């Protein structure tokens, strides 16, 4: 399992990383590995404000469709349009080209409640 040490995590396998004033989010290597080949990603509307833990989209693989959850509350600033044509980047490079959304956090202190890379790794390995 690959881990991005600079990111923080949610138990539901989303990662979050600071990028200037924005937070960028995707799914973890463990998540893409369990889901298998991703075939479709449904994004939220840019400009929409969502709360922490709310569903921001759906990711679909040949095995299953899974909801995606906001690691922190925020206003959607960008979605990774490039995945529309070919979502395979989520499998190949989930912490890089396979990012899903960027948002402006409503409450930056929610960052502190997320799992550290080490804690997430332990939790995911136990599954």
């Amino acid at each position: 399992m690959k881990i991005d040490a600079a990111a923080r995590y949610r138990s539901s396998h989303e990662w979050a990383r600071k990028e200037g004033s924005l937070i960028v989010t995707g799914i973890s290597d463990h998540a893409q590995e369990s889901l298998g080949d991703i075939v479709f990603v449904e994004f939220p509307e840019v400009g929409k404000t969502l709360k922490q833990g709310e569903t921001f989209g759906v990711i679909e693989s040949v095995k299953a469709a899974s909801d995606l959850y906001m690691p922190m509350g925020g206003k959607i600033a960008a979605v990774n349009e490039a995945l529309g044509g070919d979502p395979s980047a989520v499998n190949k490079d989930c912490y890089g080209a396979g990012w899903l959304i960027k948002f402006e956090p409503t409450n930056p202190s929610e960052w502190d409640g997320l799992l550290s890379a080490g804690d997430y790794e332990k939790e995911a390995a136990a599954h």
Partner: protein
Amino acid sequence: MNLRPEPLAYELSAPGRCGAALPEPDVPETALPEGLLRDDLPLPEIDELTAVRHFTRLSQKNYSIDTEFYPLGSCTMKYNPKANEAAASLPGWRTTHPLAGAEFSQGALELMYRLQAMLVEIGGFKAASLQPAAGAHGELAGVLMIRKWHRDRGDLKRVKMLIPDSAHGTNPATCSMVGFETVTIPSDADGGVDLAALAAALDDTVAGIMITNPSTLGLFERNIEKIAKLVHDAGGLVYGDGANLNAITGIFRPGDAGIDVMHFNLHKTFSTPHGGGGPGSGMVAAGERLADYLPGPIAVKKDGRFDMAMPKAGIGRLKAFHGNFGVLVRAYTYIRMLGAPGLRRLAETAVLNANYLKAKVEKVYPLKYGRGCMHEFVAMGNFVEGVHTLDIAKRLIDYGFHPPTIYFPLIVPEALMIEPTETETRETLDAFADALLKIAEEARTEPELLHSAPHVTPVGRLDEVAAARCPILCYRG
């Protein structure tokens, strides 16, 4: 099964060939408007016999419960007795028309009236409606009833529906259709609903819970009465998903445990046709609280005569006329054939068969939740590095079996969800278990056999990823 590859109709086409002779026109010919004409219409040109052979050969590739074992978890692919078909083919049923009116339809109305009463008794409810045309349609009915019940009491705050993560897969979609927000409730270590998480989620914005019992883990929810009480005390209602009724008929009545409304899949438990053909029937039954809210019309009896009537506070019609009537005749026939003792034996045998199969394979195919199962069990196919459940499922086809449901429920990694049903013999169960064990052996010794399976079908392993990412939906010559 006919295993030869079958060409597409387009590949059988030859220019100018025709399968029909049209009579001379008896009206004057008129030119079509210019804008509607095109030079090219790529339809296959085939003679009649070639077309007949093509479609007959395709029909011979059907895999069905009438030809082979079909242990598709959550689907209850049981044998449909042919007596059901004989009854449904009787001219009185076959030729009746819903517009004939009650006066000329007393027999049909009596059958519906009796079937409603039977299902009410089986489920422990107060009233039933035969309107919904399928399971998900029945779910929609039940959740619309719950929404209307709250609204009629002026309670507009309740917009959340709780759904355990071991619930039937269609439940969240039903909530979205109704405009409710879904809140997932996790399972506890035993595979039941986590009561602490449930209690924490309950407040005055919760419309109710949708619960499947037995769950999609094939486990009986032992705390069902506690769960119903917790939800009722918080002002919510309890929807029961009847997908797994096959495990409990004649033994446990959901209505007695506090379920307010439930759908019955006549095409699962009550042996009416299933799968791509159907049509299905997902009739709903309700207890004291929701009986007046049922969709209508429902069959009623007044002064010894049968008629249709709308429930008092009902959600209205869900389907034209009276549901899928031909399916109702089949279910009625089945219930009358079995009787009360037969319905109990049905559930006992379904549970026995599943436990027999589980006992034969669980040493090799581990279970996440190990306790005794009901009508189905969920095993895991990840016991050999590099071999996945998908490979095991595909290899089963080589042994002549329909693969079980895979990768569902989502809370079990590499899930294989196996439901043998009550209609299989011990020999069939043994043969299926032997195939699973043999495949596990092959996974260790010859994994490439699994990776390249199936080998005996007209087409081999399909590229599901390419099919989903770039589907080709038109013939391209």
